[in-house]
C-alpha cells in the first residue's frame, strides 16, 4: 500500500552548504501587516526555509491572489506576482507548466482560496501541479475589515453576521482530500519549528502541497486559535504528527491516539493497560486518505489538533506529465518546425 517510504522529517537533519541567507530572500519593502498579525511569523519562517532549501531567489516565484496574506510576495526578494482575487492557483499553474524548473509558491488566504478561488484550488490539487501552497487561515476577511469567511465557525459574530453566521464552515483538509490531494500539512503561526518543518516538506514534495497556516488576525478575529496558541496549553492541545513515529502528545508525553472502531480516541499511556506500542504510528505516505482525514479534522476540546505533515503521497505531477507527453510525441513525430507543419497539409499548385 505504501508506494513511498520517504521520511519527510529527515530532510531537516541533512546538512548542506548554505548558498543563500535569509537576507537574500528579504525584499526592501516595508512589511505593512498590522503589528501582532500572525502573517509576520509565517513570512519569517518562509524566508528561513527558502534560504535553507538553497534554491536561488531568481528561480523562485511567489504568486498570490488578494487579501492580507496575498501581500506576501512584495516582501520576498524573488520573482513575485500579486494577481487578482482567487486566481493565484491558476496563475501559479501557468507559471509551473510554462517553466517547471521554477520553485513556485502560492500564497493565499481562507477567503481567496476557499471562497472566490475555490474552483481553482480544487483543480490545481486534483491535477497535482507541483506548487507549494501556503493557505493562511485566520477565519475572517481582514482586508475588507471583518466579514465572515468560508472557514468562520458557525454562529460567529462578524460585521457581516451581526447575529452570528448561519453558514457551515469548510475544513481545508477535507477539501484537499476530496480533490485527491497528495500533500496536506498544518502549522500554527507562532510555532516556528513546526512551521519550518512543514514548509520544507511542502517544498520537497512533488505535487500540490497544501499547508494550512493557522494565523491570528489581531484586529478582527483575535484569538481565533488562541486556545492553541498559548504556549502552556500547546502540548496538551496539539499533536505534532511525524511520519513513522507513534502519535503521542501531552506535557508528559503520556497521551496517545488509538483506533476505537472507525474513530480515533485519546488514551493515556500507562492507564488501563495502554502501552506505547498500542498507540498508532503515523504513516503520511499511505495512499488511502481515510486516516489522514480523521487526523486532520480532529477538534478540541476532546481531541488534540493535528499539526505537521499529515499526508505526503507521491504521485506523478501534472507538469511532469505534460513534459513527458511532449517528449513522447516529439520522439515519434517528424514535425519539428513550422515549415514541417506546412508540409503536412494537403496541398496543390495553382
Amino acid at each position, binding site marked *: 500500500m505504501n508506494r513511498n517510504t520517504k521520511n519527510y522529517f529527515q530532510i531537516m537533519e541533512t546538512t548542506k552548504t548554505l548558498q543563500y541567507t535569509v537576507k537574500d530572500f528579504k525584499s526592501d519593502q516595508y512589511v505593512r501587516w498590522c503589528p501582532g498579525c500572525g502573517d509576520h511569523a509565517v513570512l519569517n519562517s518562509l524566508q528561513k526555509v527558502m534560504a535553507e532549501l538553497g534554491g536561488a531567489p531568481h528561480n523562485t516565484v511567489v504568486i498570490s491572489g488578494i487579501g492580507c496574506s496575498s501581500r506576501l510576495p512584495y516582501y520576498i526578494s524573488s520573482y513575485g506576482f500579486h494577481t487578482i482575487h482567487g486566481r493565484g492557483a491558476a496563475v501559479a499553474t501557468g507559471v509551473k507548466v510554462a517553466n517547471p524548473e521554477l520553485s513556485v509558491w502560492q500564497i493565499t488566504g481562507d477567503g481567496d482560496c476557499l471562497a472566490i478561488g475555490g474552483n481553482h484550488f480544487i483543480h490545481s490539487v486534483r491535477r497535482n501541479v507541483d506548487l507549494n501552497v501556503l493557505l493562511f487561515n485566520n477565519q475572517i476577511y481582514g482586508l475588507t475589515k471583518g466579514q465572515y469567511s468560508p472557514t468562520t465557525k458557525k454562529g460567529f459574530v462578524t460585521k457581516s453576521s451581526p447575529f452570528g453566521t448561519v453558514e457551515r464552515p469548510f475544513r481545508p483538509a477535507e477539501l484537499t482530500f476530496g480533490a485527491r490531494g497528495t500533500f496536506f500539512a498544518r502549522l500554527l503561526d507562532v510555532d516556528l519549528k513546526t512551521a519550518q518543518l512543514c514548509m520544507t516538506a511542502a517544498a520537497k514534495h512533488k505535487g500540490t502541497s497544501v499547508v494550512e497556516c493557522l494565523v491570528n488576525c489581531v484586529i478582527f478575529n483575535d484569538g481565533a486559535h488562541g486556545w492553541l496558541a498559548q504556549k502552556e496549553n500547546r502540548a496538551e492541545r496539539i499533536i505534532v504528527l511525524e511520519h513513522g513515529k507513534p502519535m503521542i502528545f501531552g506535557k508528559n508525553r503520556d497521551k496517545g491516539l488509538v483506533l476505537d472502531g472507525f474513530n480515533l480516541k485519546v488514551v493515556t499511556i500507562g492507564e488501563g493497560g495502554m502501552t506505547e506500542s498500542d498507540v498508532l504510528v503515523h504513516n503520511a505516505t499511505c495512499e488511502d486518505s481515510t486516516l489522514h482525514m480523521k487526523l486532520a479534522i480532529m477538534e478540541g476540546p476532546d481531541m488534540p489538533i493535528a499539526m505537521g505533515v499529515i499526508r505526503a503521497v507521491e504521485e506523478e505531477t501534472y507538469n511532469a506529465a505534460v513534459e513527458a507527453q511532449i517528449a513522447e510525441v516529439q520522439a515519434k513525430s517528424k514535425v519539428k518546425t513550422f515549415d514541417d507543419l506546412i508540409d503536412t497539409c494537403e496541398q496543390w499548385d*495553382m
Partner: protein
Amino acid sequence: MDKTKTTELDNVVVRFSGDSGDGMQLTGTLFSNLSAILGNEISTFPDFPSEIRAPQGTLGGVSGFQVHLGSGKIYTPGDEADVLVAMNPAALKVNAKAIKNGGVIIYDADSFEKSDFEKAAFTSENPFEELGISDSIQLIPAPLSSLTQSSLEGFGFDNKTVLRSKNMFALGLICWLFNRPINQAIHFLTNKFGKKPTLLQANVKVLTDGFNYGNNLHLTISTFVIDKSHETPKGKYTSISGNKATAWGLIAAAQKAGLQLFLGSYPITPATDIMHELTARKDMGVKVVQAEDEIAGITTSIGAAFAGSLAVTNTSGPGLALKSEAIGLAVMAELPLVIIDVMRGGPSTGMPTKTEQTDLLQALYGRNGESPVVVLAAGTPDCCFHYAYMASKIALEHMTPVILLTDAFIGNGTSLWKLPKLAELPIIKPNYVKPSMEGCKVTSRDEVSKARYWSIPGMEGFGHRNGGLEKDYETGCIATDPLNHEKMVNARQAKVDYVSNFLPELKVEGDETADMLVIGWGGTHGHLMSAVMNMNKIGKRIALAHFNYINPLPKNTIDVIQRYKKVVVCELNSGQFATFLRSKVPGVEFLQYNKVQGQPFTVAELEADFSELM
C-alpha cells in the same frame, strides 16, 4: 454518356443539407477540397445547430454546408445556392428560400415519405408546392437510402451503418453533376479511413455508385463545368478554416520569436477548434492547459506570460466577459498576452453556433478602470493566420494584451490559403530586458514606445514584484500617489497608441475616387468586397475601406474617411464600430447598415442597400 449538354459557369454555389448526423459537413469539405485541387477558388460556410443530435428529421436538427467555387476571385460562400442537396424534408424546408431561380434540388426520395413530412411540420404531402418552390427549379429525386443499401449489400453492415454512408452517394452524384473525377475524393477518403479498410472500401463503393448512378440515369439535366481560376496568384495552396489558420499563426509566431507557445483554454463554441489544433501540436512543444473555467483559461496564460511564454487564451463572447478582470490584470502587469474571441450570437448564451460582430465594444471597453488594449480583427478564414501572427508580434514587442476578433463565420468557414514559409514572415523581437540594464525595475520602459522591459523568472538580477496594484512609475513599488497614477494611466495608453506607428495604412478598395465609401471590419470583408466589386462592374461608383486594425486605428483613418461625401458603416451588430468611429473621426455623418440575425450579410442585400443610398 447521354448528357444533353454541359454548361460552363464562372462560379457555382452548392449547399449540402441534412440531419446533423448525416455527414453533411464532411461531404461539403470533401467537395470543396477536391474542387480546389482541380484549380477552383473556394469559400465555404458550415451552418449547423448547437444541438449535437436533435431528433431525426426535425427542423432543429438541420445541418448545412455551403460551398462556393469559381474560376475567378471568390470572396464569400455565396448568397443563394445553385444546387441544394436535401437529405430530408426538414432540410428542404430550412433552405427553401436560399435556392436560386433556375437551380437544382437533389433530394433523397426515400426520406420524402408521409412520416418525414410530419416530422418537418408540413401539413400536406407535397412539400415543394407547400413551400412554393418555383417551377424554374429542377427537382431530381434520387432514392439515396435504398441505393446506398443495395450498394453495400454483402458488406455485412447493420442498416444504421449502411445509411451513414448515403452522404457519399450524394457526393458521387454531385461529382458527376460537376464533371469532377472522383479519384481525388477517393484519395481523401483513403487518408480519412486508411486504418479501417472495410469502412474505406464501403465508402469508396458508395461514392463510385453515386457517380455512376448520375452517369447512367440518362437525366436530361445539364451538367456543369467550372474552369480553373486564373486570378489566383501562382503558388502552393491548401484550404484552411479560420480557426485552424489562427492556431497556425500562433505556432508560427512562437517559433519566429523563439518562444514556447502556451494556451490556457476552456471549451466554448465556436472557438474550441483552436484548442484542438494546438493541443495536437505537442510535437512542436506547444503546451495547452484545458482549464477548469474561462477565468483559469486566461489566468494560467497570464502565469505563462509572466514565466516567459508566448501566452494565448481563446474564447467566445461569454468567455470574454468572464475573462475581463484578468485582461485588466494583464493590462496593469503589462504582460504580452493574446486573447482570441471567435464571436458568436449574443448576449448571454445567445446563439452559440451562429455568427455576429457584437463583441467589439466589449473588447474595446469591457473592463474596469482605464484599460486600453490593442484590438485586431481578421477578415477572412485564411487571413486569421496573418492576424494571429501580428497579434502575437504586437503583444511581444509592445508588452500589451492584444485581443484578436474573429467570428463563427470565418472561424468555421474555409478559404484557399497560399502556404507561407517561416522565413518570409516578419521578425518578432520581444521587448526583453538587456543584461546591461542593471537595476531595471518592474515598471522600467522604453521611453519612446513606453513598452515595459520583459524580465523573466530565472534571469538573475532582475527579480521583481508585479501585480494588479498601481505601481510607482520610477521604482515599481505599489503606489497610490494621485499624479503618479495619472502618469501610469497615460503611459499605458501611450504604449497602445504608439502601436499605430507600425500598422499598415488603411487601404481603399474598389473605385477610390467614388463619392460613397463603405466601411467594414473583420469577417464581413468578403461580402462587402463582392458587393462593391459587383457594383463597380456595372459602373456604380463606390469604394470600400475595410478595417483589420481597430485599436489603435491606422494613422490615415481620418484622412481617408473625410475624403468621402457619403459613408456607410456595415456590421453584424447594431452599430458598434460606427459608434467607435464617431468618437474618433470628427465631422463625418456615419450612416449604418446593420444586421443582427446570426447570419453573414448577403451580397444581394448589401448591393440593394448601397444602390438605394446612392
